[in-house]
């Protein structure tokens, strides 16, 4: 097989890690693929830049919220200098650019494997109730508010503790009116209205990782329970599970929405009820868990993006344990200097 050049973002393997390093590690473990990887970074300090056993090259990118033309030009530069057959964006904020420019990128020979705009919008927390209904899950009691007085009234009904959430981004756990007002204003200032007030459901955090083929079927999916999370709410240890209602909901999600690309479904299991909390239109940061359990989703997605044959098997053993760990490395300043002065290494 010819060498494939790919670019992967989210290589910020920090305390709130992006999924990029796990994606690259997975792809490099598929020995039937010969892959050269460019890491896409937004800061010279992103650890992935320095993991030279994973990244062949690294490039600093303009922010995706900046002019699309600058971002596109940077990708075309990467194609010219390092080669670029497939981009795997892993950060929420990048996805609108890639979805909007999918055809243009393909015209330049840069392939992606992403949901379309309509599918992407399903992750909006406004749509979650509808999605949950269609896939047999519940949603915690939620109110949509657009003013301070509505916030107070909603909190009186929902009670404390509660989650104050933006439609797409940000969520704060609040325990009293003062905290709720502060969270409300932070979200409104950053993301505008409306804001959601959601009852906190106590239970086990169950998540599903998967890739949809765009025609209602799965390229593989796996369910886990989070055993331990950090103060930032990020998984530190987890275990694979085989939960029939969650498996059925995943299957329905793929069938009803013909989802294309990577996804993460976040749920809370409380007694007999399973609540849908969030749908993420990308790989989660714990993506390597699935690879380690035998389902290499990033490699399958890469193959799908290139039109190559891929496996669909979702067989894994419940009880496989995931443990994240920290690691220290020391290097000379050469790579850092190059990234700072040239924007690439």
């Amino acid at each position: 097989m010819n060498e494939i050049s790919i670019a992967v973002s989210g290589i910020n393997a920090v305390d709130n890690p992006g999924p990029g390093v796990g994606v690259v590690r997975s792809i490099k473990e598929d020995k039937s693929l010969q892959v050269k990887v460019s890491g896409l970074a937004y800061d010279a300090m992103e650890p992935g830049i320095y993991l030279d056993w994973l990244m062949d090259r690294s490039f600093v990118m303009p922010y995706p919220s900046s002019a699309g033309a600058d971002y596109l030009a940077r990708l075309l530069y990467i194609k010219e200098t390092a080669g670029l057959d497939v981009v795997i964006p892993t950060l929420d904020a990048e996805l609108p650019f890639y979805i909007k420019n999918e055809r243009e990128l393909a015209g330049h020979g840069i392939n992606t494997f992403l949901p379309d705009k309509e599918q992407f919008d399903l992750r909006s927390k406004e749509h979650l109730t509808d999605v949950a209904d269609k896939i047999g899950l519940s949603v915690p009691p939620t109110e949509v508010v657009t003013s301070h007085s509505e916030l107070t009234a909603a909190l009186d009904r929902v009670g404390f503790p509660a989650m104050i959430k933006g439609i797409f981004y940000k969520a704060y756990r609040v325990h009293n009116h003062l905290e709720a007002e502060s969270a409300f204003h932070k979200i409104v200032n950053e993301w505008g209205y409306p804001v959601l007030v959601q009852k906190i459901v106590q239970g086990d955090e169950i998540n599903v990782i998967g890739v949809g083929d765009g025609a209602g079927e799965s390229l593989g999916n796996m369910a886990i329970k989070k055993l331990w999370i950090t103060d930032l709410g990020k998984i530190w240890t987890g275990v694979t599970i085989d939960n029939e209602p969650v498996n059925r909901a995943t299957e329905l999600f793929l069938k009803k929405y013909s989802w294309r690309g990577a996804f993460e479904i976040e749920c809370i299991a409380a007694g007999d009820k399973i609540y849908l909390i969030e749908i993420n239109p990308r790989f989660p940061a714990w993506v390597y868990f699935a690879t380690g359990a035998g389902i290499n989703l990033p490699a399958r997605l890469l193959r799908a993006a290139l039109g190559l044959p891929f496996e669909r098997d979702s067989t894994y053993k419940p009880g496989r344990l995931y443990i994240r760990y920290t690691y220290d490395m020391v290097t000379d300043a050469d790579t850092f200097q190059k990234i700072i002065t040239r924007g690439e290494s």
Partner: protein
Amino acid sequence: MNKLSSLALNEEGFVFDPTTGNSFTTNDIGLSIIRYLKEGKDSEEILRSLLDDFEIDSDTAQRDLIDFLAQLRVYRLFEGS
């Protein structure tokens, strides 16, 4: 019973529920009770087996069995009587 049949047990009393990801530890008697339940034995059969397997008097065995079944019900692992 269905839930019990899917539980993974090891010799040292570690019990893993693959549906929920929850895990528990239990002593030898608890482990034996789960194994007998998985085999489809009823309470009376389990009690007789416990008396055969362990140096334990009937009252203690009965109390342990009732307590343990109640624990299993709390964790939604057992719905029988």
